[in-house]
């Protein structure tokens, strides 16, 4: 950049600063989303696969947990796809922006 004499060093550091904020926010959002998913997988699959907790975890329980985990994640993806496409068609229909609509229809966390 200095080669062309454009962009002072402060401009460059501003670009870095902006990029750093964006990167950190994205990383934190991804961690938060993953945590929420993992805690729900845990909850549902424990409920499903370990009806009577024994003194050790059996191999059938373990394979049930693997299947359950994969199934829950596929279901999350199906729900995500369906929900996002419904929201966007709904917001087009109502002529509202998606922000207002998604806030309108946000279910409260239990």
């Amino acid at each position: 950049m200095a080669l062309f004499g454009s962009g002072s060093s402060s401009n460059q550091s501003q670009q870095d600063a902006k990029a750093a904020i964006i990167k950190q926010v994205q990383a934190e959002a991804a961690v938060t989303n993953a945590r929420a998913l993992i805690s729900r997988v845990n909850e549902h699959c424990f409920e499903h696969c370990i009806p009577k907790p024994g003194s050790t975890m059996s191999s059938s329980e373990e394979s049930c947990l693997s299947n359950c985990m994969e199934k829950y994640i596929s279901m999350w993806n199906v729900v995500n796809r369906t929900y996002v496409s419904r929201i966007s068609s709904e917001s087009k229909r109502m002529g509202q922006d998606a922000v207002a609509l998604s806030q309108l229809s946000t279910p409260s966390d239990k």
Partner: protein
Amino acid sequence: MDASQVDVTKLSDNDKKELNQFLASEAQKSTIQQSVHHLTDACWKKCITSRVTAGRLDSSEESCAQNCVERWMDTNLAVLKHLEVLRGQ
């Protein structure tokens, strides 16, 4: 660069505007993701009734999940619509 060391007051107005837009869209994304978590939770209870024996969703479970989301949205809209009626009384 670590974002915690960034002095946001030094950003240009244009950068601030861009960041605000980015943050608004991230907030929206996060709201939608929370809804997806809630819905997956609810639809798992309704659609996964037999023992889990495979890691993949079978076709009936997949269509159940899709219907679950669509009807949940319908419920949402119906509630809002009726609320309008109640408010007009």
